[in-house]
């Protein structure tokens, strides 16, 4: 059913991604889909990498490590932005088109009142794309 699964990855907060990564691996194996890990980074030096190119290398290394876990084909795509916080949603929506993803698996936080003012990225992306979007909550929120 799904050919390309896109997973937005924030290398600075990799621990929060675990549930989403696990779901992705299962889905990819089930549908024999390829996985594209998408990173959005600042053009300025940051905590993970000092240039967008370095970020891409690190994301690529990350993707290779994931491939050892699930065995499905992987690729990466990095977008560098002068204002990544503000441009995140737009860039993800653009990425869905460019990597031709038919499923997006995203980590998200539990719903909160603040979402009215600052909507969650997952929710925003889901309302702006034709692709299916799977929002994965943190495991401790599901208790």
């Amino acid at each position: 059913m799904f050919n390309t699964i896109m997973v937005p990855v924030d290398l600075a907060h990799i621990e929060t991604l675990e549930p989403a990564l696990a779901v992705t691996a299962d889905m990819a194996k089930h549908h024999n889909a390829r996985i594209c890990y998408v990173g959005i980074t600042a053009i300025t030096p940051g905590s993970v990498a000092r240039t967008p190119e370095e970020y891409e290398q690190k994301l690529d290394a990350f993707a290779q490590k994931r491939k050892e876990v699930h065995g499905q084909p992987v690729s990466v795509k990095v977008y560098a932005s002068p204002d990544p916080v503000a441009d995140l949603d737009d860039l993800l929506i653009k990425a869905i088109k460019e990597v031709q993803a038919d499923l997006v698996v995203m980590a998200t936080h539990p719903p909160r009142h603040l979402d009215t003012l600052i909507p969650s990225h997952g929710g925003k992306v889901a309302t702006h794309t034709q692709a299916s979007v799977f929002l994965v909550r943190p495991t401790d929120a599901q208790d």
Partner: protein
Amino acid sequence: MANTPDDKTPSEATPSEGIPAPEGAANLIDTDYVIGQDNITANKFGLDVDLHGKVFTFSSIVILLFVILTLALQDQMEPIFNSMFSFLTTNLGWFFLLGANVFALLALVLIFTPLGKVRIGGADATPDFGYLGWFSMLFAAGMGIGLMFYGVAEPLGHYGTAMGGISVGENGVRTDWAPLGAAAGDQAAAIDLSMAATIFHWGIHPWGAYAIVGLSLAIFSFNKGLPLTMRSIFYPVLGERIWGWPGHVIDILAVFATLFGLTTSLGLGATQAAGGLEYLFGIPANDTTLVLLILGITLVALGSIMLGVDKGVQRLSQLNMMLAALLLGFVIIMGPTLMIATDVADNLVGYVTHLPALSMPFGREDANFSQGWTAFYWAWWIAWSPFVGMFIARISRGRTVREFLISVLLIPTLASVVWMTAFGTTAIDQVVNSGITEVQDAALELQLFTMLENLPLSAITSFIGIVLVIVFFVTSSDSGSLVIDSITAGGKVDAPKPQRIFWALIEGALAIALLLGGGLAALQTAALTTGLPFTLVLLVGCYAIVKGLMSEPRSGKPEPRKTKTV
């Protein structure tokens, strides 16, 4: 988002087999420091924070103390600031003039050296913004509001003093405010001198200061891999010590200058906009109007912040650029068109001719002018430079040094020449040839509107003028919040959004508190005094630029890769 750097088609998406070489050569500084390692991250009430513990805490405390002191002890504080500042301009005026000359000269020289070929962000970096958007943002951040305020007032002011000639007090010291040797009674010479002096204050020197800060930050951040904060340009001098207290102090000072510069401008700008509204619509310019204006400006700025640089500041700057061009075109067509056209060339020549004398730091006889006007302006531009420079740096990745300097130094200077000539010549023409003296007699913030009133359609043009003033403040408040947030987050530009909102609200709240409490003037003086330490910072920046650029690969055009994998 048509212009993100990694604009590749799906088939070009990096294959995961084999790690690609870094795009384009750049020369990263080898440091063990991890950006954000001193940051405090937390999640309180569903809000994430990511802040540099020391810089954020200390600058917040200093700001709070300062405002409380200024409000509570206004009568005691104001004279202290005033005497501090007049001491600076009187005794150290030469230092500001000399510094500004160094900045302008270096920026100018770099255009013509091979170092101009270095590309910001590495040899293969591509620009993040189109020319128009980029230039609009440069201009809006750098001057914007000042051109509205002084476009009429300054040429007229200098013209008046130049015509008045030299007057000497009992102690043999000149008491007039005329530039250089004045031009007593000589109308043509007085116009020439006054326009040259005005353009001097809005030309290569202020933009040179911005260019130095912007370029040094851009090189040390994008090419050397250091965080986008002021401390990074000190790396060639202080080395790893910039991560400790020397660096903290530099950053705190930058926050201080930016926040107070912005706050006072927000307050004074609101005063001007309110003045304009009263003049145009009869809305009383009282405290309520001022508070509502600041609230309105802050609210629009918040919206713009939420949209980000690309959709927020960039679009507003472009809108303002269009409105400003419209107003400029209108004044040129409706004013003395032929006179303005010939004056642009004349004033440019006049500017260049008078430049050596006007920028001379030593042996000046026109102390009132060189200290009261020039040194004051220089301190003001330099105090603004961390804010403008940091913002310019952030949007300039992918440009070559030469492109950067031409766009930050030469084009804005030319724009200033045209703007000042159009508004100045029209106003002087009204006074000299039409005998309309009311422009000269009007309050400083109303001179623009009075000049427009003597042209057709003044209701519309004055309204456009007010809109311009307000939108310039929105973009300042927005880009200022971005800058302060990134300094207090240890150079991170991807800190959580609510932090920017916090700073925008602080700016608005401070401006209101100081406007009502009456400490704005004192604070402005305090912000100006940061011009002194920043002149030193900029001199270090000059050294850092040369040192940094020397170790960069030079390439005007991206060279084709030598190895190409099929």
